[in-house]
């Protein structure tokens, strides 16, 4: 399931617009919320690609559209040479075996009326992979893998804490031996000490099973911790994508710079030494994004061109993509 140059998934010019409808009986299409607007990136086999951004920037929509939980409006999702955007029916279901998701809310994503055993076995049944005793053994193995006692198989979700429920969600995602796991804010509803447990578990599993992660979260420190590369989204677009160290040490886009400087570091000694960029205002309405660069309403360094033309998303240095008029590409 791999494309060219080691990439597992290639996303090209992906768009997902949600229509805004008016009228009750005769509905009219009056506009679009451009949740994902022309996004391109690769997920390389075995890596963790972190996707960060603020509320409403479209990061969750990207994850869901890759899995075809949302129908893409335009663009391609290429997996093993096949464009997932065109696949339908049974073929789509077979391809989904390779891609699974861990959801944000471990309280809402587990059916309260199903036992842990049947929750984890559900994907095995849907895809008819194993039956009977073998299925039972696989469930026990998965529980053990995520650090839960296999003895818990007949318990219900409400008997578990948030961190344990998230482990159940992870076991379910791993049941089909996927290549890609999309982790959509898997730790944001957990307490700090439990977050570390779950992140350590995800790292161990990646090493053991050779998984590829798309890790979606708003906590920059945690995303930087777990990722090999990071993409920063703003208002439906990726503004910058590069290596985890490069993006911290040498962020090029003004939004990335502001975002990095806004993250608190738990060390009173570094507080006074850091340069702070405090952005003014809020994220604009995605139904009515500004003309030109969509960051121009908050950008501290915007120039005339930024209010007229949309910047292109370019590889400005080897392995470092950004979309900003003020960044000059270096020798490529």
């Amino acid at each position, binding site marked *: 399931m791999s494309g060219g140059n080691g990439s597992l998934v290639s996303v090209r010019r992906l768009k997902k617009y949600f229509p805004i409808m008016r009228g009750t009986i005769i509905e009219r299409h009056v506009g679009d919320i451009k949740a994902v607007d022309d996004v391109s990136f690769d997920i390389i086999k075995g890596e963790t690609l972190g996707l960060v951004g603020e509320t409403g920037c479209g990061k969750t929509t990207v994850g869901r559209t890759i899995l075809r939980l949302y129908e893409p409006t335009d663009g391609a999702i290429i997996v093993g040479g096949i464009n997932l955007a065109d696949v339908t029916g049974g073929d789509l279901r077979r391809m989904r075996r390779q891609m699974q998701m861990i959801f944000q809310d471990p309280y809402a994503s587990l059916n309260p009326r199903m036992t842990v055993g049947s929750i984890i076995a559900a994907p095995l049944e849907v895809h008819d992979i194993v039956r009977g005793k073998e299925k039972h053994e696989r469930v026990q193995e998965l529980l053990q893998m995520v650090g839960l006692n296999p003895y818990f198989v007949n318990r219900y979700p409400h008997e578990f804490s948030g961190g344990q429920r998230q482990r159940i969600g992870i076991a379910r995602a791993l049941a089909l031996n996927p290549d890609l796991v999309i982790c959509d804010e898997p730790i944001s509803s957990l307490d700090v000490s439990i977050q*570390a447990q779950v992140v350590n578990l995800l790292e161990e599993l990646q090493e053991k099973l050779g998984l590829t992660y798309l890790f979606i979260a*708003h906590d920059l420190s945690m995303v930087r911790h777990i990722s090999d590369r990071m993409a920063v989204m703003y208002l439906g677009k990726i503004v910058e994508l590069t290596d985890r160290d490069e993006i911290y040490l040498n962020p090029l886009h003004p939004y990335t710079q502001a975002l990095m400087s806004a993250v*608190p570091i738990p060390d009173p000694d570094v507080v006074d030494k850091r340069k702070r960029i405090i952005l003014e205002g809020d994220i604009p309405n995605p139904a009515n994004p500004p003309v030109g660069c969509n960051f121009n309403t908050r950008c501290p360094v915007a120039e005339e061109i930024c209010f007229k033309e949309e910047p292109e998303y370019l590889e400005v240095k080897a392995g470092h993509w950004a979309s900003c008029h003020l960044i000059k590409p270096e020798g490529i």
Partner: protein
Amino acid sequence: MEALLQVKNLTTRFYTDEGTVHAVNGISYDMEAGETLGVVGESGCGKTVHALSIMRLIPTPPGKIDAGEIIFDDGRDLLKLSPGDMRLVRGAEIAMVFQDPMTSLNPVFTVGSQIVEALKIHFGMAETEANKRAGELLDMVGIPAANNRLNDFPHQFSGGMRQRAMIAMALSCDPKLLIADEPTTALDVTIQAQIVDLVRRLQSQLGMAVMWITHDLGVVAELARKINVMYAGYIIERGDVHSIYKRTRHPYTIGLLGSLPRLDEVPGTKLVSIPGLPPDLIALPQGCPFYARCTYRLDQCLEEMPPLEPADEEGHIVACWRWEHVAGRKN
């Protein structure tokens, strides 16, 4: 310096059908005028219940403040005030900003009218005067075109603006103490930076004391001068902000700091997680509540809760039988 707030042996419990929840278990500390105190801990550690106890906002029943004194300002014990007198303290002398700006504003009244209400009650201002003051307050917290926004309803404000409006409301009566309960948890990081910056600026302008309650050790490192670390309803460590981060003495605080990735970390760092879960507050163990998760534990810890004892001359106190081993003083 004279203490603004003295909390003495505060004990708050909830009597429920399942049993007695020991939410706050005899905590004591002082806060000076103008000081910024960070109260840090995970969900269910009693940090919010302790703040609500100070404000006397514990729903009774099932909650009850079973013991303790809260000496405020000129020596009044807030727990002994009549409900009427307490109402004059709330808002006017101690104000509170809550976590969720979406639910703490009333959706059917305009933002302006909600600020004006407090001004009328506490200062007896007339409508026009109160409106003018409300506009000034919104302007002070950085809402653009403040006077025009007074007639907006809360849904017309973004999350960050709602939290600003809540802060404006809290500051309307010039309180001596502002209690901020997870005020930035529901907000994005760039908006959080705006609010932190705002509170810091207002504090130096107005000279009030701020109690910042949070689970985020990052935010309080930027704001607070003193830190209380809470666990299972106890203060388990307290000290100056530098001392807490640099000379950490309690195994729980060490675990909490280790669980937190740093943006400036070097690659390959592994998070030090704390195994297990916090204890059930209905069935608290007899000894140290952290025993089950602690890597330094002894049999003694199971039998007896360690008292808070001074770890140095600078006022760093810690509740651990083995803090000297933990801090690397002894092996």
